[in-house]
């Protein structure tokens, strides 16, 4: 299994070398955003207002971390289920988003957007929030503080372990269930 170490912001060249099943250790700045934050980002776009971060080359992590205890940059921080962001994701990919990070299946429209605009979908291990938090070295809220766990955070990650679930060429890692019929 190929393993790549990549730095954000991600480029088209980064995305083009990735295939479903590859392992990636991600480094640099990523942004957290889940249900309520996506709704707000989409409202800002509708109103023609700037987003709290630059989408170009950006990676969005679908996560709502637990509160940081004293002395730690963040609490537990594993992925949430991605399909709930499917309604918003194609538009974000079309505006420069390069990667989303979560767990679970994506809609066809999202997979198509990743093909059209050179993007990938990474899976992180769900339910391993304590372990994954070790790779987040800094975190600060940059927008929508009122959303609490759903606020948008700028996070610095070091060797954040990810699997390419969907690549920019239609490849998918998830196993198809063996159903008779």
């Amino acid at each position, binding site marked *: 299994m190929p393993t790549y170490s990549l730095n954000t912001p991600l480029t088209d060249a980064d995305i083009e070398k990735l295939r479903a099943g590859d392992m990636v250790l991600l480094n640099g700045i990523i942004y957290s955003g889940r249900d309520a934050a996506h709704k707000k980002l989409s409202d800002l776009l509708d109103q023609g207002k700037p987003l709290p971060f630059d989408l170009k080359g950006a990676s969005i992590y679908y996560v709502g971390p*637990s509160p940081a205890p004293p002395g*730690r940059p963040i609490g*537990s921080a*594993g992925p949430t*289920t991605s399909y709930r962001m499917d309604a918003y994701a194609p538009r974000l990919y079309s505006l420069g988003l390069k990667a989303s990070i979560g767990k*679970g299946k994506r809609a066809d429209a999202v997979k198509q957007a990743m093909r059209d605009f050179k993007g990938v979908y990474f899976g992180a*291990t*769900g339910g391993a929030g304590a372990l994954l938090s070790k790779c987040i070295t800094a975190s600060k809220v940059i927008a929508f503080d009122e959303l*609490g766990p759903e606020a948008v955070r700028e996070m610095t990650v070091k060797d954040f372990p990810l699997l390419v679930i969907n690549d920019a060429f239609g490849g998918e890692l998830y196993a198809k269930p063996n*159903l008779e019929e």
Partner: protein
Amino acid sequence: MKEIKAADISAAVARMCMSANTKLPDDVRRKFEEGYKNETSEAGREIFRQLLENADLAFETKLPLCQDCGLAVFYVEMGEDVVVPGGINKAITEGMVTGYKDGFLRKSSCDPLTRKNTGDNTPAIIHIDLVPGDRLKISYMAKGGGSENMSRVTMLAPSQGWEGIKKFVVTRVAEAGPNPCPPIILGIGIGGTFEYAPKIAKKALLRKLDDVHPDPQIAAMEAELLAEVNKLGIGPMGLGGSYTCLAVKIAIAPCHIASLPLAVNVQCHSARHEEVEF
């Protein structure tokens, strides 16, 4: 009459919330160890390895096992001869709020329409059963949203029977795929009414993963369903493999002659629950 102080209940509930979110139950850990040894897919084994490491780390650091510390669900068996001055609901709720605050647990409860967070994880979801005697048992479960979203209730026709039940459950797990953080645990409620089936399905998730149902017929049904579900090959995190489901727990109740209610409560591998008795 036995009087139990509300403050004692609150303190015990606060402790349970913090402890359950940071210490993986021993029976779940044993299943992870078994999976790490026996899972057929390498990617799946790697997931079990990470989950074991995550459990160790959570226990050491007191960071929650999963950032989704769930809605706080309580199953209470309360003796008819027990009194709690001030009220049992308030005592549990206050303990939960303290536990989630002091334990740095995530507050995941919001208004269903405005989506505004209630800020303190209230309301606690409390199911109270009155039982004879003077004992009080409070079981707590941290129920995450990802697996709860994959759960379903359906009203089958009586003619569909066991075959219909199996088909519904297997199809549900197949459709859920990687979403609920497999390997999952299934709580199945068969019978009762529209609201009773899911109540007993969730309560069945409080059982130990490696226990065997005392009714041999139900034990056989659990084993059969587990084998069927694991044939799907979804595997840990949906990466393929033999461990899609760790255990199936079935609860059965009589139902209307016209109905066959069925509830499938999907639980993720982060099966956090604890209980306390007074």
